[in-house]
């Protein structure tokens, strides 16, 4: 990444993080944003905590040009929450693109003065890449919600089916099929 832009981003990191965090908070009902922002206890306010911690780490990773796969855990934490809250898919995911808004707002003057538009485009492409990773995570979370329903049904009925000889368990030694599930 362009060193000048990197320096500027680092310089204004805390302002950008705050701007981004506040913008994410505004996707929640007005009556709730105060609580989500102010309550710092991670157990009393897991949503606010996950978003505050995650947004900081994700921005750091973007600025440092780290491999995005390294910061996916934080992205996963945020998306896992938003995937079960009352958002449409687009609203749940919009928070990624809010980084662009925050950077543009906080560095508007500096980018213009230093003619950093090309560098900004490059940086924003990285955000687009992050959005694609985020889409994978979101889809996986939503798929998992359906899997959980199926698993719950299986747990409830397994004993009955086994008892009625409607189900046969393959003994462990014959079962050499490896776990094919891939984790993101």
């Amino acid at each position, binding site marked *: 990444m362009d060193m000048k832009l990197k320096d500027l981003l680092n310089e204004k990191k805390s302002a950008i993080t705050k701007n981004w965090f506040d913008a994410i908070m505004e*996707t*929640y009902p007005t009556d709730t944003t105060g609580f989500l922002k102010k309550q710092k206890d991670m*157990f*009393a306010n*897991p949503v606010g905590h996950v978003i505050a911690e995650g947004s900081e780490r994700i921005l750091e990773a973007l600025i440092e040009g780290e491999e995005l796969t390294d910061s996916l855990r934080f992205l996963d934490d945020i998306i896992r929450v938003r995937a079960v809250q009352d958002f449409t898919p687009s609203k749940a995911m919009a928070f990624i693109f809010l980084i662009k808004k925050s950077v543009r707002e906080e560095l508007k003057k500096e980018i213009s003065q230093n003619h950093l538009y090309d560098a900004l485009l490059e940086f924003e492409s990285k955000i687009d890449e992050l959005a694609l990773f985020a889409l994978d995570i979101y889809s996986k979370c939503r798929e998992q*919600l359906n899997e959980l329903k199926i*698993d*719950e049904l299986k747990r*409830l009925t397994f*004993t009955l089916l086994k008892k009625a000889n409607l189900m046969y368990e393959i003994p462990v030694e014959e079962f050499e099929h490896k776990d094919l599930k891939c984790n993101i």
Partner: protein
Amino acid sequence: MAKPEKIKTPKPGEIASSIDFKSPATDWMDTPTEIKPGNFCWGAKEKDLLTLGLPNPRQWSPLDDDWKLPEGWKSTILDGLSDRLSKYRSFKIFMDICVRCGACADKCHFYIGSGDPKNMPVLRAELIRSVYKKYFTASGKFLGRLAGARELDEDVLKEWWSYFFQCTECRRCSVFCPYGIDQAEVTIIGRELLNLVGLNIDWIAGPAAACYMKGNHLGLEPHAIKGNIESMCDDIEDLTGIRVDPSFNRKGADILFITPSGDLLGDPGIFTNMGYLMLFHELGLNYTWSTYASEGGNFGFFTSNDMAKRLNYKIYAEAKRLGVKWIIGGECGHMWRVLNQYMDTWNGPADFLEVPKSPITGTVFENARSTKMVHITEFTADLIKHGKIKLDPSRNDHLKVTYHDSCNTSRGMGLLEEPRYIIKASCNNFYEMPENTIREKTFCCGSGSGLNASENMEQRMRGGLARANAVKYVQDKHGVNVLANICAVDRAAFPALMDYWCPGVGVYGTHELLANALVMTGEKERVTDLRGDDLPGKEGNE
């Protein structure tokens, strides 16, 4: 040829500035309730309401505009509200006394997880309080909305249905309320009112109807109960070489044992049930199971006071029929709130029973002097205290355990130490979750009070976030892989919650952990735990 008109396209900045990322700020009364998949449980079925003799049985769907309400529904609700205001002094006080201090607002797990202001306990109560004001207070009648009052209409009723079935009656908010307002009671009354016009959910009405007809929520008939328990005995024999031979409906037994039917069917409840069987066998306890009073839980409690009383009746009736001396109850949550706080008033006094006294240790359970029913963790903790059972906690060394206080046993009856005492005696690795998430301040599983259906999975996941977040903390910090509990709903609901938020954490009943450690007289060398997982140091010893 006419020159095509030039179309002015907006500049990127113009588009960007027109996007509003903020949620609309409307007053709660003007924010409509949206009923959408993932956020609600299916409506009660016609056949179940018929079985229970509840009003307005019909086929309906919460997704339809027309909920097929009975004629005159509004006066039915208002008359019902009036009845309850005069009958329950507590409810009247809860309607009048709240000063909107907000102490409860951020204590509800549904609010914490969803951010939906109507899940703040204060606002959830306000849904009904606003109607109370309009029709039962002078200020509300004259000043209307200025005094926080509003008309009761169909949208308000639907809002009640949505939010009173988004409260698990866990009572965490009441711990923080300076006036002691019990939001669970407000929800209980709200649900009673909804039931007057046929607005229950299937996951409650179905089990309640099954319980009314068959004696348990799952609708297991006597031969199925006996068969299930016998197949658990087969598994115990494979594991220990010992044949456990429990009795059913045996007259003249000293003790009647009653547990939630969730323990009789389905993973992981059955392992807890195997734990009871092994413990009682080892003690040589003179006890019996009942295939009639085959449910400790009470989904009637989530319907109405009368329904709860009706479904509870069988416990004392069966104790009397069998002529037992007293009753032990299994691991369950709301079952114990009902037994501890209501049963004696509803269907007591059980003066035909004796004050519970452990035949093994001689301990008299003074706390159960009136109800005559003892929680199994009290019974077992007493055995351990007196050194009456031999435990080898190293058999649980592959497990790193934390304990979830069920809302009802912790806040409803103060049962905090006994389960921990048993777990610590049975396991070498025990780690508490953070202080503000356990004991009286425990976070609900998010699926209690009849909300552990599958169709509301998103709601359950966000409702359980606060609980799971604390589990994840001890998982990351100490490598915890077991969430122990003493509640059948927990055992049914937690596996999904753990899979979503903290995969790798299994869900165990406390008596399953005890049974793993229990050294039984004449047992063969165990190589696996109750689930068939290798015991530490016995790997590959199949």
